[in-house]
C-alpha cells in the first residue's frame, strides 16, 4: 500500500501530459468508440425496463400500433388502476411480502447463529457441516421438486404459505450461513477475546459484540435472500394454486378475456409494480449488494 501510493502520483501525471499533449486522429477515434460502447451498454441494460414503463402508461391503441409508437401521446393509468383493483393480484402481492419477509427473518435468525459457530468456534464436525452447507448452495432446485411436493402434500400444506417458506429455506439458509460465516471469520479476534477474558460467555460475546458488528453483513445477506425469495418461480408455480399464489406465477399466467389475446397492458403494469421496489432497493444498496455477491461468489 505505502509504496504504491508513493509511486502512483508520479506516473499518471506524465501519462496525462503525453495524452493531452497530442490529440491525434487515432486517439479521438478511440475516445469516440469508447463512448459509443459505454452508451450502448447503458441502453442495452436499461432499455427493456424503460420500455415496460413507457408501454404501461400508453393508451391501449398505441400499445399495439404498427409501426411502433415510441412515445405515448397521452398518459394512461388504466392498466395500473385495473391491476391495483384486481383482488387476485393484490392477494399475490400480499403473499409475496409475507413469504419473503418470513424467509429472510428465519434465515437470518438461524443462519447468524450457525455462521458464528462456523466462523469463530472450533469444533469437531465443523468440516462435514461446512461441506453440507456448501453443497446445498449448489444443488439444483429441480432435484428435490418431486419429493418436496410429496412432503408438502402429506403435511397438508399444498397451496399454503408455509409450504413456500419451507421450500425457500432450502436455498436462502445455506447461502446466509455461508456468507455470514465468512463475514464473522474476517473480524479481528481481539474484541471477542477481550470480552471473554472479562468473563463474558461466548454467547454473550456473540450477541453483545460480534452481532452488532455483523449488522452490515446481515443487511446485505438479508437483501439478497429477500430478492431470491421475491423472484422465485419454480416452487411457487408448483406448490401453490390460488390461495397462496405469489406474484411471479401470477404475472406469468395473466390471462385476458380470450385465450389468444394477452392483456399486455396489465402484464406490464403488474411487472413494473413488482419490479420497481426491487430496482430502487438495488440502486440504494448497490455497494452492499456488490460486496455481498462478490464475497459469496469469490469465496464459494
Amino acid at each position, binding site marked *: 500500500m505505502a509504496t*504504491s501510493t508513493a509511486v*502512483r502520483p508520479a506516473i499518471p501525471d506524465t501519462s496525462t501530459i503525453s495524452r493531452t499533449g497530442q490529440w491525434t486522429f487515432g486517439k479521438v477515434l478511440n475516445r469516440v468508440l469508447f463512448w459509443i*460502447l459505454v452508451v450502448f*451498454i*447503458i441502453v442495452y*441494460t*436499461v432499455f*427493456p*425496463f424503460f*420500455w*415496460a414503463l413507457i408501454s404501461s402508461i400508453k393508451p391501449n391503441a398505441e400499445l399495439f*400500433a*404498427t409501426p411502433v409508437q415510441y412515445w405515448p401521446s397521452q398518459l394512461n393509468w388504466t392498466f395500473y388502476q385495473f391491476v391495483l383493483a384486481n383482488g387476485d393480484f393484490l392477494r399475490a402481492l400480499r403473499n409475496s411480502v409475507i413469504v419473503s419477509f418470513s424467509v429472510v427473518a428465519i434465515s437470518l435468525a*438461524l443462519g447468524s*447463529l*450457525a455462521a*458464528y*459457530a462456523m466462523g469463530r468456534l*472450533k469444533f469437531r*464436525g465443523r468440516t462435514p*457441516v461446512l461441506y*453440507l*452447507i456448501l453443497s*446445498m448452495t*449448489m*444443488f*439444483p432446485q*429441480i*432435484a*428435490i*421438486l*418431486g*419429493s*418436496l*411436493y410429496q*412432503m408438502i402434500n402429506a403435511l397438508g400444506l399444498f397451496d399454503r404459505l408455509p409450504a413456500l417458506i419451507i421450500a425457500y*429455506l432450502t436455498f436462502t*439458509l*445455506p447461502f446466509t450461513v455461508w456468507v455470514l460465516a465468512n463475514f464473522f471469520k474476517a473480524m479481528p479476534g481481539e474484541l471477542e477475546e477481550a470480552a471473554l*477474558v472479562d468473563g463474558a460467555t461466548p454467547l454473550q460475546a456473540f450477541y453483545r459484540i460480534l452481532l452488532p458488528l455483523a449488522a452490515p453483513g446481515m443487511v446485505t445477506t438479508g437483501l439478497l435472500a429477500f430478492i431470491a425469495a421475491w*423472484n422465485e*418461480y419454480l416452487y411457487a408455480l*408448483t406448490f401453490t394454486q390460488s390461495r397462496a399464489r405469489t406474484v*411471479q*406465477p401470477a404475472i*406469468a399466467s395473466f390471462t385476458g378475456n380470450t385465450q389468444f389475446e394477452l392483456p*399486455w397492458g396489465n*402484464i*406490464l403494469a403488474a*411487472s413494473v409494480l*413488482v419490479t420497481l421496489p*426491487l*430496482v430502487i432497493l438495488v440502486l440504494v444498496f448497490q455497494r452492499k*449488494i*456488490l460486496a455481498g*455477491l*462478490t464475497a459469496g*461468489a*469469490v469465496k*464459494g
Partner: protein
Amino acid sequence: MTQRVATAPLPAPKAPGREVDLPQSSWTKARERLAWILVAPSVLVVVLVALYPLFQSFRLSFTNARFGSPRPEVYVGFDNYIRLLQDTVFHAAMQHTITFTVASVAIETVLGVVIALIINSHFTGRGVVRTSMLIPWAIPTVVSSQLWRFMYNQDNGVINDLLVYRLGILDSPVAWIANPTTSLPAIIAVDVWKTTPFMALLLLAGLQVIPGDVYEAATVDGASKWQQFWQITLPLLKPALLVALIFRTLDAFRVFDVVFVMKGTALDTITLAIYARQTMIDQQYLGRGAAASVVIFLCIALLVIIYSRLVRVEET
C-alpha cells in the same frame, strides 16, 4: 483449503497466556457444545427440507411411484432411466439444455470480460454505468421473460420494428418466439441480457485487485495494450473468471424460468428442468420425473467436480 487448516486439531493452545484462568479441557468442551447448539437448528432445517428430499428423489427414481395413485410403490430398478434414454423428448431436452448452457455461458463470458475492461478504465459517469448494469440482474426472471416476449412480438414488438422498419436489416418481421429455428437463440439472448452485466461486475471485482504498477512496468518495457491483456490481465483474472464460470454454468444447466414463461413445455425449446417438472407434476409420473431430476443433479455434480479440479490445479 483454509478451512481444512483451521479445523485441524490443535496440538496445544496457541497462546497460553490468554486463557490461563480457564481449565483447558472443560473450556473446549463447553465451546464445542455451544457450537453444536448454535449449528443444530440450521443443520436440522437443511437436513429435513433439502438433504432428505434429495435422498427421496434418488429412491423414487428407482420406483414406479405416481401421485394420487392408491397402487403401492414397486421397486423397478433402472427402468425409469432406460425409459429416459428411449424417450425422444428427453433427448431433445438434453440437447436444448446443453446448447443453452454452452452458448449462453460462452457469450456471457466474452461479453462480460469486454464490459468489465471498459468499466475498469476511469471515466466520468462510470458509476452510472455500474448502476445501470445491476438493473437486469434485479428484475425477476419471470418479469424479464414477459418483457422480452412483449418486445419479440411479431406484429407490434419493438425488436421487429427496429430491425425491419427503422434500420432495414430484415425484410419482414420475424416470429422470434413462435418460429422453432429462432426460439432457442431468442431465449439465449434474453439470458445473455440478464446475466452478462452480473458476470461483468464479478469480473470487475477481479480486475480491481490487479495492481496498476504491473501495467506501468509493462508499458515502460514497451508491451502493447494487446500484449498486456493476454500476458497480464487474463492470467491474473483467471481465478475470478473460473468462479464466475462455475456459477453461470451451474445456473444455466438447470434453466427453467425463462424458457417456461416464454414457451411453456413446447418441444422446440423444452429443457431438462421443464421435462422433469412436466413428467413429475403434470403427468404425475413421480418415479420417472425423479429419474430425470437425478440426471440433472448428477450432471451438475459432475460439473462441480470438474471445475473444482480446475481451480485446484490453478492454486498449486
